[in-house]
């Protein structure tokens, strides 16, 4: 591989990883838009610095970005505190005005021909492959410093993000920690715009964390994973953009990141969309099965143990979709709650205990609603239909204790206990 491209690849992965690690705390604070605003607001500072340093000195760039970013951040804070503007309004006001000034400066330079506009445009959408070696070394070094900074301030950042009041109560200097965090954010954006530009910078700050949070509930692991996602996207994006002439890096990196982000939201275990759908289906299955067992138990109460019901009879008592009912009955057969004799089904002892439990919970809950919440007896059935599937043995015991092992529910039906 081309040694220069290799260096660029390593550099951009570092830049992206460090932006993600800093951005993680903005994400957790629910201040994703603030990162976006700071990124846009850097433009005027960066453009001015570019002119002053004639595009060659990265230190000018960093200073310009730092000044513009801090001014933007504290302007937002000032607007929030001193005016009646809501936070999102303050953020967009600052974002758009600063960005507007930046674009104006850019077009002015373009018209006078004073600046190399080809170089300037990379701040908008990023062109990592065209980065100079000097810039690459400086920004890679800065990235390492950023990661180190987060490591050093880890406890402080964690605490002001989770519980600001507690942090202040133990005497931590919240304002100082917040200032350090803002400086790191501005630097992370300065570093990040080398590869994605100011317009798409928010993606580099926020998307990796949003993706990583789906996979883990541990902060250190989330930071590591966000860095990894970001680095992989940057490497792929840079490689693609380098192989296609005139293609900016930013959009490619952000697209890869977006794919990782949406992929995580869909496929992550536990928090992902698929996992939640699976849970919903499991709940539905539980509800369906318990309702059938309840139905059988109710029939046995009326007509004596060992009642046999056909598919059609079941459907008449309780309106079910045919295929769903078939599936539920199959499931109950497999779990030995029901047995089938020819066309008819009847309860096993296991199924009877389960059916009795559901009926008991239903009646206990109805009684609880009337006794404890003072609800009228004709209003409680729908509630109990749901709660009978939710109540755990622990809560059941507590209800029985609180109601003093009641015999009858509000409709004067017998409440069946385990050893009845």
């Amino acid at each position, binding site marked *: 591989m081309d040694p220069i491209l290799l260096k660029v690849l390593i550099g951009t992965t570092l830049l992206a990883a460090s932006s993600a690690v800093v951005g993680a705390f903005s994400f957790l604070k629910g201040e994703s838009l603030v990162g976006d605003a700071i990124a846009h607001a850097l433009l005027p500072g960066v453009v001015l610095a570019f002119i002053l340093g004639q595009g060659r000195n990265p230190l000018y760039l960093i200073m310009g970005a730092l000044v513009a970013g801090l001014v933007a951040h504290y302007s937002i804070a000032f607007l929030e505190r001193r005016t009646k503007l809501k936070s999102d309004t303050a953020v967009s006001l600052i974002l758009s005005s600063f960005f507007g000034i930046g674009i104006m400066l850019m077009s002015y330079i373009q018209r006078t021909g004073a600046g190399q506009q080809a170089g300037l445009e990379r701040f908008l959408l990023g062109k990592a492959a065209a980065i100079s070696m000097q810039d690459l070394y400086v920004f890679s070094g800065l990235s390492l410093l950023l990661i180190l900074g987060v490591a050093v301030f880890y406890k402080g950042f964690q*605490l002001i993000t989770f*519980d600001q009041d*507690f*942090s*202040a*109560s*133990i005497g931590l200097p919240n304002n100082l920690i917040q200032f350090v965090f803002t400086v790191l954010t501005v630097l992370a954006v300065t570093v990040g715009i080398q590869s994605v530009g100011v317009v798409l910078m928010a993606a580099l700050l926020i998307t990796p964390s949003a993706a990583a949070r789906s996979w883990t509930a*541990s*902060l250190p692991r989330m930071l590591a994973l966000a860095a990894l996602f970001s680095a992989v996207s940057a490497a792929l994006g840079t490689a693609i953009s380098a192989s296609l002439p005139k293609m900016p890096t930013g959009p490619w990196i952000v697209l890869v990141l977006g794919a990782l982000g949406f992929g995580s939201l869909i496929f992550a275990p536990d928090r992902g969309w698929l996992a939640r759908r699976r849970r919903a289906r499991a709940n539905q299955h539980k509800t369906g099965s318990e309702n059938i067992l309840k139905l059988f138990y109710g029939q046995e109460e009326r007509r004596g143990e060992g009642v046999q019901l056909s598919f059609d009879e079941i459907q008449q008592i309780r309106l079910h979709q045919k295929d769903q009912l078939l599936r539920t009955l199959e499931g109950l057969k497999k779990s030995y709650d029901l047995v089938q004799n020819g066309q008819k089904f009847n309860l096993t002892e296991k199924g009877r205990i389960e059916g009795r439990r559901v009926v008991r919970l239903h009646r206990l809950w109805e009684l609880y609603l009337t006794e404890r919440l003072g609800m009228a007896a004709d209003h409680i059935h729908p509630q109990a239909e749901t709660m009978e599937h939710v109540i755990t043995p622990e809560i059941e015991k507590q209800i029985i204790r609180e109601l003093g092992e009641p015999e009858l529910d509000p409709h004067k039906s017998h409440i069946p206990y385990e050893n009845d």
Partner: protein
Amino acid sequence: MENVSVEVHNLTVSYHSKPVLWDVDFALPTGKIIGIVGPNGSGKTTMLKTIMGLLKPDSGYTEMFGKPLDKVRERVSYVPQRESVDWDFPADVMDVVLMGRYRKNNLFKRITEEDRRIATEALEKVNLLEFAHRQISQLSGGQQQRVFIARSLAQQADIYLMDEPFVGVDAATEDAILKLLRDMKNEGKTVIIVHHDLQTANEYFDWIVLLNTRLVAAGPKEEVFTKELLQEAYGGRLTVLSKLGDLISDTEFPLREPEFKEEKPE
């Protein structure tokens, strides 16, 4: 009073330029379970936050053990309202309890074995040891409250200020918290609790501060829990006071003239 835990001197605090506490003045004893009691919007939480230095008073000051808060910070522990934080934050129970060991002077240091030992003990006291590695997003309301109390115990303070620790907790948690409070009291600790429920206040506390924007009464519960005083605190707000408050807020009128200073004489 011989041993004063918290002293509140002529305190006036406003929120969004609306006065929430007017000239409140009291001193609390040590080694007692003390309730700050009053109806909704009576300034209880504001009182606690001002004592903890989280809100700046318009006038007056507060002290602990006769000193400003900054001098005795390590002897004071604060438990915010449970709903004030995002429980979806990526952390497990142990992570949160360990925060009780954070100090200004160990902010850049690693957590020590000693910190872990103390946090483990605190978790044991609130009966959550088996949940040490549970994600906090998976806890019930009562468990969340016990995590907050464990974090507070890990601070090993002498005064504990808790904001509504009994709200939204199950009966088991309520019993556990109460037992814990009594143990703490027997060890000579002072516990100050913001509480809105009159029914239970009489049973929980030894000493009561009855608040409704102004101080209604403060003292041993036998003296404070009288029909007249309760009626005064809960029988609606003083209309003149609340009208004045609205007026001050509407006209953005400063609550104290800038020249007016009422600091504690050095």
